[in-house]
C-alpha cells in the first residue's frame, strides 16, 4: 500500500471524523493507501510540518494556507471538505454587547495562531480598530476554553459551532442567554478545513494519483461519518478523542458544515480578497488551488 501521512490541525476530535472514519472503515485500504494520521495540537502549525517534509497532506484553514503560501510555502488546496464555516462569536445576553454596533470599547476573545484572520477581516469590514481604546475593540488572545466568558474577562468570545459553543452550554449558559454572531450567516466566513499538499510534489503523477485516491476515500469517510455519527464518534475515540458524548455531538454539528469536497470558487475569491484587503497576504494568490484532484476523485 502507498504510505500517506496526514497532519491534522488540532487534537483528535469530531472535526476530523471523516478521516478517522475512512481509516477505521477501511476506505483508505480499499484505495491501496496506508494512511498515518498525525494529531495536531496547540502551536503545531501544519504548514510548518509539511514544509519540513513531516507530512504529505495537511488539514488547515484557507486563510492560514494562503498566508503560508504568501510566505513561500507553496501549498495547494486539493479539496475542501468543509463548505461552511463553523466559527462564531458569542456574547452573554445580559452583557454589554447586543449588536455589531456595540463592539466599540469592549473586549473580544479571539483565537490566534492562524485562526485570527476571519475576525480581523470582519473588524476590517466594520471599520473598527483593534488596538483597544474607546472607539476600537480590545482583542484578547483567548485560551482553549470558554472560561473568559464565565470569568467575564471578555465580553464576547470565539467559539466553534461544533465545539466550544456546546461547552458554554454545558457550563450552564442556555442558548437563549447568548447572542450569537455566526461568520457564515454574516457573510464573513473564510474557508475552513481543507486539504493541502506541496505544489512541487503534485507534479509527480504518482503522487497526484495517490492524492486522488486519498481524497476519494476521505470524502467517502465523511459521507459515512455524516450518516453514522455514532460510528464516527467511536472512530474519534479510538484515535485518542475525549468524552464520547461530546464527540458525538460534535460530529453531528460538523456534519452540517460538510460539502461535497469541491472548492467553491466564489468563497475562495472572497477569502483571498479579505486577506489581501488586510494585507495579511501581499499579492493575489496564484495557483493556490487545483480542482484536478477533486475532478478525478469525485
Amino acid at each position, binding site marked *: 500500500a502507498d504510505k500517506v501521512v496526514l497532519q491534522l490541525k488540532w487534537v483528535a476530535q469530531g472535526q476530523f471524523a471523516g478521516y478517522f472514519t475512512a481509516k477505521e472503515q477501511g476506505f483508505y485500504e480499499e484505495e491501496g493507501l496506508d494512511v498515518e494520521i498525525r494529531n495536531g495540537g496547540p502551536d503545531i502549525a501544519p504548514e510548518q510540518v509539511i514544509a519540513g517534509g513531516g507530512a504529505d497532506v495537511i488539514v488547515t484553514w484557507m486563510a492560514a494556507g494562503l498566508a503560508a503560501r504568501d510566505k513561500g510555502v507553496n501549498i495547494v488546496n486539493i479539496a475542501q471538505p468543509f463548505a461552511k464555516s463553523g466559527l462564531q462569536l458569542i456574547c452573554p445576553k445580559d452583557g454589554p454587547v447586543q449588536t455589531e454596533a456595540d463592539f466599540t470599547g469592549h473586549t473580544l476573545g479571539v483565537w*490566534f495562531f492562524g485562526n*485570527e484572520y476571519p475576525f480581523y477581516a470582519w473588524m476590517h469590514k466594520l471599520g473598527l480598530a483593534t488596538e483597544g481604546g474607546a472607539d476600537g475593540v480590545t482583542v484578547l488572545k483567548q485560551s482553549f476554553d470558554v472560561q473568559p466568558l464565565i470569568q467575564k*474577562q471578555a465580553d464576547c468570545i470565539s467559539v466553534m459551532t461544533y465545539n466550544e459553543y456546546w461547552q458554554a452550554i454545558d457550563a450552564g449558559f442556555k442558548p437563549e442567554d447568548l447572542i450569537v454572531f455566526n461568520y457564515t450567516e454574516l457573510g464573513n466566513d473564510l474557508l475552513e478545513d481543507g486539504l493541502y499538499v506541496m505544489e512541487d510534489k503534485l507534479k509527480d503523477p504518482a503522487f497526484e494519483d495517490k492524492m486522488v485516491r486519498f481524497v476519494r476515500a476521505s470524502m467517502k469517510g465523511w459521507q459515512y461519518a455524516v450518516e453514522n455519527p455514532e460510528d464516527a464518534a467511536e472512530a474519534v475515540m479510538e484515535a485518542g478523542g475525549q468524552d464520547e458524548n461530546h464527540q458525538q455531538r460534535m460530529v453531528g454539528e460538523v456534519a452540517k458544515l460538510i460539502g461535497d469536497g469541491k472548492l467553491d470558487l466564489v468563497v475562495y475569491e472572497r477569502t483571498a480578497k479579505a486577506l489581501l484587503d488586510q494585507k495579511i497576504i501581499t499579492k493575489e494568490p496564484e495557483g493556490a488551488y487545483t480542482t484536478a484532484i477533486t475532478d478525478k476523485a469525485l
Partner: protein
Amino acid sequence: MRGTLSWQIMLVALAVLAGIIAHMTAANGGPANIGTALGLLAVSAAAAWALNRQALAKACILFIGAHGTAWLLLSGVSGHEGQAGASFYLALGAAWLLAWRCVTVLSLMKPVSLVARRALGLIIPLIFGAWVLILWEAIVRGAGIPFLLLPPPSAIADRIAASSSVLAADFKQTVLKAVLAGYVMGCGAGFVAAIAADRFVFLRRGLLPIGNMAAALPIIGVAPIMVMWFGFDWPSKAAVVVIMTFFPMLVNTVAGLSASGHMERDLMRTYASGYWPTLFKLRLPAAMPFIFNALKINSTLALIGAIVAEFFGTPVVGMGFRISTEVGRMNIDMVWAEITMAALAGTLFYGALALVERTVTFWHPSIRGG
C-alpha cells in the same frame, strides 16, 4: 603549543587539500569564492604555524583568516542557496577550526593588565558566539533549509531592525512587567518560605514536601488557572513566574542554611546569639553561594515561564504572544527575533547576577580560585 603543530592546524591543512580536490572535481555552479577562500585558509594556517612564538600576532592572523574565509563563503553563497557542495563545507569547517585555534591561543594568554584581561574575557565568548551564527547562516543557506524551519541569522537580524517598535513593546510587557515582578516575588517567597521552614521545625516537616509538590505544578496547567485568577494581563504571567521560581529558591536556600560550619555555629551559641542574629551574621552569608545558585537558575526559568504563560490568554502584546502568533502566521523570522531578544535580556541579567555574586561571595573558595 611550543613549536609543535596543533591538531586544529593539521586538520585545516587536510581540509584545504580535500577542499581543493572537491572544488576541482565539482560540477560548475554552486557558491562562488570557494577558491579564494581555500587560498586564504592555506595562507593563514601556514602563517599561524610559522609564527609560533608570538601569541598575539598568531591570534590576529588566525582571527583574520577564519573570519575572512567566513565572509567570503557567506557572500559567495547568496544566489546559490541550497547548492553548496563538499568544497563549501570543507572550507567552512577549516575556517571554524582556525577560529577554534584562535580561541585556544587567546585563552592561553595571561595578560597582566586588567583591561586586557577583561577584553579577553569578552572576546573569547564573542568569537564562540559569532561562530555559532556563522555556521548557522552558512549551513541554513548552503543546504537551503526551508525558511519555515529555521531562518538564517541574517534574516533574523533584518527582522529585528524592521520591527524594533513591536519588539520593544513586547519586551516591556513580558520582561519589564511580568518577569521582573514575578522574579522578585517568587525568589522572595521561596526565600521567606525557606527561612520559615528553617525557623519552625513544624513548617520544615510540612512545608518542604508541599513545596516539592509545587515544584512540578507544570506551568502549562497552572497558567490557565492563573489567567482565571489574575486576569489575562501581565499579573497572571507574573504569578506563573512566581510559581516557577519559588521552588529552586526554596531548595537552595534550605541547603545553604545548613552549609555553615559546626564550630561557627557553636561560636554563635556561646554568644547566646538569638535565631535572627545567627541567621544574618552567620548562616545567610554562608548560604550565599547556594542562594546565588538559585537566583541564577531562576533568572532563566522566569523568562521561560512568562513566555509560555502568554500562550494562554493574553492581550495582543508580549513576547510569548508574538512567538505563538507568528508561528501560526509563518513569520518564523519574527519568532527568532523574539527569541534573540529573550536570550539577550536573559544573558545580560545573568551576567549582572554573576557580577553581584562575585562581590558578595568574594570569600568563597570558588571565587578565590580553586
